[in-house]
């Protein structure tokens, strides 16, 4: 296990290095940020001064070396837009996005799993058909459309839900969360539901397919033959087995949800990182874009690792570390 983890960490470092190269040179190819920020009244002398101040007059390889040098000391540079260290900005907004993604994940599981299991157990009933049509709709409708329709219905027409921003937060010392206040949950409900739809649809489909497969396996038949109560057959024997693909897919999907919750965040003006990234790209705030993408790579690598470890816990047949253990 330890050896496996070390190997994965080394792989991750390699991926990170390649990413910094790609990202750094990538963002340097498109446009010059100085022309976007500087006032139109700023003349050539003024532009040159800004370019020199930001270090953009250096050859690109030297800029990269400086960047890597700073990165090694944990400094990812200062945002051109905000004048605040990029990492600070990301961590300031990450809790909001994590909270949204987490709420969406919980919703997807709590609603999706029972629906999927039900549809798997009674595949021909009209209830199952309803569930499957719902999952189809949730899959296919564009998120921004659903978001706007929800705002129109619940905020504008019915007036039940607030449409912008995050509600009251509670400071837990290390992080601020809106999960613990009523106002916070009120604000969270619509964006979290919108964000969860695709995951929910996926959970429904995976749970249904898994259930249909598992119910015909021998161990379920034996369990039933042994007189194990139906609830335990489903809850202990069947559920554990259908969870493996669900965990894999959700693990991957969760990373995507955090990294690219952009659409939902901008529709509901949720102060998360996704929205910040889009703004940063629009004005070529290079340090912020680079820092963010590196964080995302880091997150994906970590999530993959976690999913692998979770696997081995869910299914004892899976051993980490290449067969030796």
């Amino acid at each position: 296990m330890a050896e496996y983890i070390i190997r994965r960490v080394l792989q991750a470092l390699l991926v990170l290095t390649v990413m910094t190269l790609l990202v750094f040179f990538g963002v340097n190819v498109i446009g010059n940020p100085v022309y976007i920020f500087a006032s139109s009244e700023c003349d050539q002398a003024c532009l040159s001064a800004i370019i020199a101040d930001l270090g953009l007059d250096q050859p690109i390889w030297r800029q990269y070396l400086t960047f890597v040098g700073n990165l090694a000391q944990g400094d990812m540079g200062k945002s051109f837009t905000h004048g605040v260290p990029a990492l600070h900005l990301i961590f300031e907004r990450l809790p909001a996005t994590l909270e949204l993604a987490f709420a969406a994940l919980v919703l997807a599981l709590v609603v999706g799993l029972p629906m999927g299991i039900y549809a798997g157990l009674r595949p021909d009933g009209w209830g199952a058909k309803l569930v499957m049509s719902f999952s189809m709709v949730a899959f296919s409708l564009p998120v921004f459309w659903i978001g706007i329709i929800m705002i129109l219905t619940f905020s504008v027409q019915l007036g039940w839900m607030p449409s912008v921003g995050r509600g009251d937060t509670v400071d837990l010392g290390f992080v601020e969360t809106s999960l613990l206040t009523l106002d916070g949950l009120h604000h969270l409900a619509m964006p979290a539901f919108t964000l969860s739809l695709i995951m929910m649809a996926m959970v429904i489909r995976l749970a249904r397919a898994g259930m249909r497969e598992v119910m015909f396996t021998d161990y379920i038949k034996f369990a039933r033959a042994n007189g194990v109560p139906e609830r335990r057959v489903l809850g202990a024997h069947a559920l554990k087995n259908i969870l493996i693909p669900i965990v894999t897919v959700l693990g991957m999907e969760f990373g995507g949800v955090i990294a690219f919750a952009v659409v939902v965040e901008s529709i509901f003006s949720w102060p998360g990182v996704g929205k910040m990234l889009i703004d940063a790209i629009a004005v070529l705030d290079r340090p912020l874009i680079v820092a963010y993408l590196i964080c995302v790579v880091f997150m994906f690598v970590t999530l993959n690792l976690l999913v692998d470890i979770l696997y081995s816990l869910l299914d004892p047949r899976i051993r980490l570390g290449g067969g030796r253990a």
Partner: protein
Amino acid sequence: MRQWMTGALCAAMMTAAPVWAQEVLTIGVRSEASSLDPHWTQLSADVQVHEHIFEKLVALDSASQPIPGLAVSWQPLDDTTWEFKLREGVQWHDGEAFTADDVIFTFDRLKAGISGAPASPAFQLDKGSKQWTKIDDLTVHITTDGPYPTVAEDLAMLPIVAEHAATGATESVDFNNGTATIGTGPFKYDTFNPGDSVTLVKNDNWWGGEVEWDQVVFRPVTQDASRLAALLNGDVDIIDYPPTVDLPQLREDPDFTVSTIPSDRLIYLMPGYKHVEPFITDNDGNVMVPNPLRDWRVRKALSLAIHREAIRDRIMGGASLPAKNIVPPGFFGYVEELEADPYDPEQAQALLEQAGYGDGFRITLHGPNDRYINDARILEAVAQMWSRVGITTEVDAMPRNIFFSRLIRGDELSMPGFDVPEFSMSMTGWGTVAGEATYTVSGTLETYNAATGGGNGNFGRYSNPEIDARSVLAKRTIDPEERLQILQEAIRIGMEDYAYIPLHFQVNNWAMRSGLEHEPRTNERTLATEIHRVE
């Protein structure tokens, strides 16, 4: 039972009302303030928040004309010295007295440069090589290296910070957390939650008098539809940039009010004047020598071929002011008799014929698609209108982060200081923030000169000695009436020569719940002091 409950609730609310009678104004804005350091950037999204907290020596009225701010008066003592008399009895938010030392500190801070800030207004001090000296606690002298008329306009861009609070403060960071955010303005810093809100509270000791709102909250809502929804369901009281398609309905709805004023931002088409232009070919695809845009009749024909009213009504929801001027009405330099060109395709074709281009040619029109109101749709409309008079026009719209680099710096051939703008015809905008035309003429009509800063926004590289002479003279003429005349002459020459093709001034709109009254501003900023409650 239910009735009784309602009654009790009402009673509870009524008795509670006086205790909780906080007047809170929530403003839904399209772009969020990126920093509360007033010297970090001069983008209007930031400046409009700064202006509640910090003030300038010179303020701008709703038509962007200079009025007394922290300075009560200013006048030139001679050709190169201006005397500013400061307002007496002004207090910082923490109770300290405001003096000339703060002004000197502010200018020194800007002069030293705000490190890492690409959009800082610091360059305003370099214009005219300004120097500053304190004469006494309430007098400051500004000297320039030659006669320089727009000192007051430049100082209207520079917010004054408190020496005792901002000394040693880290750029941006210490202003975002409030430690250095001590101003003299009508509102005080309360909280700043990036991405979510900026909250300001009333300054009871403001020299400008009673402040109407106890609290002002700026909420960024980037998406147009979401911002409108937030207004409709009451999450915010007023929004800027309501979507133009919804303006007609908002105007008719008794629950909402719309306020409107032409902005200082001119949207125009800039022809390229190089001998050979890469994006202009004849109908068979061959390069054209000379470039047909160098003939003023061609440029006039292009202008006459544009149906500006149709763009206003069909694309802009009525929110544009067709123009042939370079500054909006009410600004110093506005020329009354310059009226927007009428739509006249016949005359356009006749002019093309006369110039020898009766068969037309091909051109690519470049522009941004995320910078100006409905920019991509305007580009498409113009392209269709031009194609109709025989000039086959292709549109290449791109995000602003790519557009502006290519527009200004051009292709790989260019070197720093010798930029070769790339486009043969491009749509851009120019905002006359200072409220007067001197730098608009110099920036857009004067011949490009990297050393003097002339023609800084002249990306077509138009060059006309008659305008140059007047523009340079205007920049050195202190007497306002004389300067106005010189500027108007320069503008008239430029517009009659079709140096560029003005389309319209954008029109600023705000939408608010009924019960509010707003005095709109040309410079696109939303100020709580200009929003009032009405019964």
